[in-house]
């Protein structure tokens, strides 16, 4: 089972520079645990105690998983998961 995961520039330090890696799992949560076993520390950049981190966007194919089932979103062979850090900021 292979799910393609696209990694943004700032997280490529965890993947030895790779912009794309592969993982397995039947939910997004399981996939991230699987990825972390191969790329230690990666999961912690995406998940905190409350679930998916607030300013990291994760997409299953072309949908933001916040509009699906978050970490419980089912994933399957052939899916593409994309991670993009949110672009944000403010006056303070």
């Amino acid at each position, binding site marked *: 089972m292979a799910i393609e995961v696209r990694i*943004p*520039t*700032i997280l490529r330090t965890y993947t030895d520079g790779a912009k794309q890696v592969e993982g397995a799992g039947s939910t997004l949560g399981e996939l991230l645990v699987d990825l972390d076993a191969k790329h230690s520390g990666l999961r912690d950049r995406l998940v905190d105690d409350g679930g998916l981190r607030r*300013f990291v*966007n994760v*997409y299953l194919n*072309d*949908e*933001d998983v*916040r509009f699906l089932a978050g970490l419980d979103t089912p994933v399957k062979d052939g899916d593409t998961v*994309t991670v*993009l*850090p*949110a*672009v*944000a*900021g*403010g*006056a*303070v």
Partner: protein
Amino acid sequence: MLAIPRDLHDKIVAHARADHPDEACGVLAGPAGSDRPERFIPMTNAARSPTFYEFDSTEQFRVWREMDDHDEEPVVIYHSHTATEAYPSRTDVSYANEPGAHYVLVSTRDPDQAEFRSFRIIEGQVTEEPVTVVE
């Protein structure tokens, strides 16, 4: 240094003025590795706030995918400050996650004179850079 065509500079300022008092935000895309901003992409500020901006996540996905398909990258990421100086704030620095981009700040605090400055933000370090507007 940021070299930016006059028309793109003016579009950014016009966008900031149009959205004032909310913060405006967007991207200038250019060919990957060229450091040349070529394409103006104003983005929706999903926060619609005078003190915060955030790209809409679905729009961001579409724009980033389009850039990838055309072998482009975000050369400039811009946003405006509507009551404070055109300098990266603490939150601007925390959320600066494209180390290759020029971070342009525009301030619309003065109704007549917009401030337009550019910075590199790499690993939490802010370095201001000169802006050359190319006519």
